[in-house]
């Protein structure tokens, strides 16, 4: 199972450059997830690995060998397309077995394989339907089955679950995770669903505007986002950002803004000592706990504007000076709109970003 390496990969459409030097190393059997907002170049990157788009600059290595001059069929990979890309004139069984039939595998083997993967994705009863007679979700599962049937070393997925309902998506996600443990293959998976990214990935690659913003394990990205974009992109509800000044008072460093003054934990403040001035303070809703008795410099006072009931938790939209802050709260907590509440900040939950470069400090 080869490792995949992208080296200074660029893509231009005419004069427009849409990928600006992607450097990425995917270890053997790694499940890599590309996430990012719409139009950031995820599909383009994937399609270049597949060989469906030409490479404008840089190189793609599979197992150490440059492959950007190779045809898709010579790269030994399977792909699930964003728009399914089924063969409309073939029934489900023939769609699934197309690659195997091209390889002239024995008939019995092909039939067994088709039955096996159809079982996995739950399509057994539809094997003799044409794609035109399937719902969107069923088509997506055919696309998945077709890729699975190929037994490739590398699997590429372009938002394979985006058209399934919540329940089916959960099932397929679990199925994928299981499959990943069972077969151990290289997988590159494009999504903009954070839950998929977090649960499936060995490594998440966050892209934005044709650049890689950060890559690493889901935990690293969640706990130590490299910049404000990554911090705001992963996590739901998203991280709150507040403008603040770094001010030393005695031994302690404070992040002080309109309506708050938060002490930076001692071990963090040492590295920040030299920096004074404007920063952005980032705090996830999950790092804010309702606690009226918290000390003032480890907490923030928020005035409730809107409360959204979402089951066990309520999401509160609050104001702090001119900024808005989202927090989560147990639904049974009695609160009134307009009330000012105090939330304690978990010390690990304090993120600071440079105002200009937006890089994490």
């Amino acid at each position, binding site marked *: 199972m080869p490792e995949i390496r992208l080296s200074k990969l660029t893509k231009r459409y005419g004069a427009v450059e849409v990928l600006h030097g992607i450097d990425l190393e995917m270890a053997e059997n790694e499940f890599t997830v590309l996430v990012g907002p719409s139009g950031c170049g995820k599909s383009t990157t994937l399609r270049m690995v*597949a*060989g*469906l788009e030409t490479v404008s600059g840089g190189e793609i290595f599979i197992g150490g060998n440059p492959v950007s001059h190779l*045809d*898709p*069929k010579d790269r030994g*990979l*399977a*792909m699930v*397309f964003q*728009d*399914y*890309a*089924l*063969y*409309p*004139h073939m029934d489900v069984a023939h769609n699934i077995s*197309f*690659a195997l039939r*091209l*390889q002239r595998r024995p008939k019995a083997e092909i039939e067994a394989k088709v039955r096996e993967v159809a079982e996995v994705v739950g399509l057994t009863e539809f094997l003799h339907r*044409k794609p*035109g*007679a*399937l*719902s969107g979700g069923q088509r997506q599962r055919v696309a998945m089955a*077709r890729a699975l049937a*190929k037994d490739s070393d590398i699997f590429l997925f372009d938002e394979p679950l985006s058209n399934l309902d919540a329940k089916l998506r959960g099932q397929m996600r679990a199925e994928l995770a299981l499959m990943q443990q069972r077969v151990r293959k290289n997988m590159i998976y494009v999504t903009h669903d954070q839950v998929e990214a977090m649960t499936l990935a060995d490594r998440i690659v966050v892209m934005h505007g044709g650049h890689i913003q950060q890559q690493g394990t889901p935990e690293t990205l969640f706990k130590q986002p490299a910049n404000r974009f990554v911090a705001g992109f992963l996590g739901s509800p998203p991280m709150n950002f507040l403008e603040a000044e770094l001010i030393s008072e005695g031994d302690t460093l404070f992040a002080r803004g309109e309506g708050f003054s938060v002490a930076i934990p001692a071990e963090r403040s040492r590295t920040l000592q030299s920096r004074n001035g404007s920063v952005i303070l980032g705090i996830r809703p999950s790092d804010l706990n309702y606690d009226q008795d918290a000390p003032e410099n480890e907490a923030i006072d928020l005035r409730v504007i809107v409360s959204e009931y979402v089951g066990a938790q309520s999401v509160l939209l609050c104001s702090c000076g001119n900024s808005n802050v989202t927090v989560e709260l147990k639904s049974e907590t009695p609160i009134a709109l307009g009330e000012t509440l105090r939330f304690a900040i978990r010390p690990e939950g304090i993120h600071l970003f440079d105002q200009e470069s937006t890089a994490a400090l």
Partner: protein
Amino acid sequence: MTAQTFNRMTPYMFLIPAAVTMGIALLYPLGYMIYGSFRDWDPSQNISETEFVGLKNYITLFFDPAFHESLSVTLIFAFTVVVAEMLIGVGLALLLDRNIRGISVLRTLFILPMMIAPVVVGLMWRYMYHPTVGTFNRTLKSLGFEGIDWLGQHALLSVIIADIWQWTPFILILSLAALQSLPASALEAARIDGATTWQQIWHIKLPLMMPVLVVTALLRLIDAFKVLEVILVMTEGGPGLSTEIVALRISRTATEFRELGTAAAMSNYLLLLLLFLTMAMFAISRIQEARAARLARQIEEESG
């Protein structure tokens, strides 16, 4: 008449002038022809003076070797040109369906022959086929070969070549349109599944183009049965009866042999043949539509 029925009738009333015009322009000559085909009719006679002969004209034709000859010439001509044009047209379309610089100029050039008036095409080819001063034989001779007796010994082949030259572009544009509307991602999937260029054509492109190709072929076939001008200009049906297609025989029967009744009967035979082909074409597109509708219903039932 109540206001309601009046309202319902309004659209039909607006249709009346068009319907009447169409009826007169289409049905009158048709009826005239059918009526005439049952009569012994010389062009000098007024049709009311002619004698009713029943099916005599049809029966005579049925046993007339000259008519058989021209029917078989027509069938050979029509099927040969359609098969050849389909093969060349689809082949060219598969070649030209790519984005290289200059391809659109090339496409326009390929389509030109179709734009030329048939009489001009006939004259042009007659000149090129000329035994001594024609382009082909001069070229052959300058290369040291014998000249070929194009419009003599090989007349049918020669008119077939000319028709292929003129009408392949028709197949080409329709095939190109069909190719361009193929789902691009299915072809990409085929590339990833390991299909070579040939396998993509054979397993994906051609099957997906098939509905368009079938209708195109039938359209061409209908047209090929009616061909007249090019052959008239090139060979006038000769030598002998070797290129006398039915349309030409009809016109000769009417003008040279002065047998309008027989000519009308012959036209009706041709009409029947074309009617059959046209209905086959409609049937095929109806079947395709019905299949699509059935699929749509099936999905609806499941989700509903």
